[in-house]
């Protein structure tokens, strides 16, 4: 792809530090997000997906500490610029982050219009009138397939799917180039899930959002909207590549295991292939296993996998696999 990367993440590390010890949430992740690209980040719970999102946006929660590496968002180096610049110039204008279960944090005693007033006031440094918001935000909502009337409602009057779409609409009001969404579909049923995916697709189609980092544990959903799939395990990316390639010919044993564990509905294949779960459970991230982090659960592991950490192998120029087996053996 000749297009300029919008987000560059290089060897990013972020640890949770507390009484419990040091949890290596994200440990050496490198990822680029080109213009017009949507990357789906998948993996088990606790593998560091949301931690990575928080680190990329520079908004680290309590206990999470940035430990090194670079994050470049549209020319701004997130960890080198002052907090105030990050807040005013990068967040919302260039990069918007929708945290997990964001729809539950809508204030129940305020109308949707009132939220937007706060957002606009913060960005333009003057208090806008209600009619101004009504016209600008209404236009934005309508272009996303939401009714303008939604602005008048209170959050409890909306269904879960509508709330989630409203949250997406609010956070894209300033047409940020990059949208980071964390598990937007996990609490929705399939029909509202489809509508939300359509809304996100519409955002990209209209050019309001150029790139997207889509975090989910549901691979079939990621498949619908992303061009690139990144599989995360234990704080590291184990496989990155075009979505079709990764799903059709998974190279990493972990990706293969994840795909074999999904009970997906495929009308074309009536026969039931037996599902297999990955044996064992994710390791304690305070003390990750030496060598390849997946080796205790891997059926193809050799003795050497436990000793040497696998390198990032580039296949066909556009796929990354972190496995000793990827290049035909050690």
């Amino acid at each position, binding site marked *: 792809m000749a297009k300029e990367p919008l987000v560059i993440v290089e060897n990013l590390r972020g640890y949770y530090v507390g009484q419990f010890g040091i949890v290596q949430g994200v440990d050496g992740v490198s990822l680029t997000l080109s213009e017009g690209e949507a990357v789906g980040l998948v993996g088990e719970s606790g593998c560091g997906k949301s931690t990575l999102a928080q680190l990329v946006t520079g908004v680290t929660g309590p206990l999470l500490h940035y430990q090194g590496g670079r994050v470049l968002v549209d020319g701004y180096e997130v960890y080198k610029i002052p907090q105030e610049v990050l807040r005013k110039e990068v967040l919302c204008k260039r990069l918007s982050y929708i945290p997990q279960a964001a729809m539950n944090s809508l204030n129940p005693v305020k109308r949707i219009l009132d939220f937007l007033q706060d957002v606009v006031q913060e960005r333009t440094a003057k208090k806008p009138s209600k009619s101004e918001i009504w016209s600008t935000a209404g236009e934005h909502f309508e272009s996303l397939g939401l009714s303008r009337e939604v602005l008048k409602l209170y959050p409890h009057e909306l269904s879960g799917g509508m709330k989630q779409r409203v949250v997406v609409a609010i956070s894209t009001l300033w047409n940020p180039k990059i949208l980071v969404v964390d598990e937007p579909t996990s609490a929705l049923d399939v029909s509202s899930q489809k509508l939300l995916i*359509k809304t996100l697709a519409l955002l990209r189609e209209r050019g309001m959002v150029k790139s997207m980092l889509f975090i989910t544990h549901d691979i079939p959903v990621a498949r619908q*909207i992303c061009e690139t799939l990144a599989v995360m395990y234990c704080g590291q990316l184990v496989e990155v590549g075009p979505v079709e390639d990764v799903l059709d010919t998974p190279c990493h044993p972990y990706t293969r295991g994840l795909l074999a564990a999904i009970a997906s509905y495929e009308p074309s294949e009536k026969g039931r292939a037996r599902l297999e779960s990955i044996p064992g459970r994710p390791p304690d991230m305070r003390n990750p296993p030496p060598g390849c982090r997946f080796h205790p659960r891997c059926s193809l592991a050799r003795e050497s996998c436990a000793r040497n950490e696998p390198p990032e192998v580039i296949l066909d120029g556009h796929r990354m696999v972190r496995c000793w087996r990827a290049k035909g053996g050690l």
Partner: protein
Amino acid sequence: MTSDALLEVKNLTKIYTRGYIRVSHQVGCMDVSFSICKGEVLGLLGQSGSGKTTIANVILRLIKPTSGSVYLEGKDIFSYTPRDYYARVQQIFQDPYGSFNYFYRIDRVLHKAVTLKNSQTFYAERKRRIAEVLDIVGLNPSEVLGRYPHQLSGGQLQRLLIARALLIEPQLVVADEPTSMIDASSRAGILNHLLTLKEHHIAILFITHDVGQAAYISDTVVVMHEGKVVEQGEASKVLFAPEHPYTRRLLSDVPRLHEKWDLSQEIVSNPTVSDLRG
């Protein structure tokens, strides 16, 4: 209905009422009828709020139906004594963390399960049987016995509940979204262990909103929408050649692994305020 029907649900209606003077009604389920044969897996499929759990709660005798009745082997379920009934019908709930009493060790749950059916069993015999069923569900006895629920993962707890069901050997297990709180990679294991229940000739009422899981595990499927049954029949028929428009829409909304949606079409639903407030 065939003679080998284990559980028959006949015209079951549950209407929740609220308030004393200004009474408001909420339909839980409306005129639902289906039957489960011995050793069969029935998938109850529907979106949130479609009344799946209401039916499960009635079958588990946790709530009383407004009208209609449920028969277990031809007898009304409310005519059994509790001990008799729960030796025949057991449950696996959605939340494995909330299914255990946190004050007791895992062992107690399993020993009680054996004594539910036969209180005269010796300790050694109970221990032997517990080790046997733990082996079936793929748990290492030394890993789980003697521990408290908070020390185990959700997947392990859910497998313990399956082991418990195997110890009791009921005729029917009601599994209400048993995988929704479990990690994707251990979900497949839970589904496979539920299938081992089937091998032991235990019928399962599998409640889910996930079409993929229902297709994997069920023999017959009942599709529910807004408290009513819209379609029922063999899983291969209902899920792969649906007749009712709602089932068709539901199936078309399921994301697929090897097929991409056509996202170019406009979002048609543009609900008005009155729709939203509905």
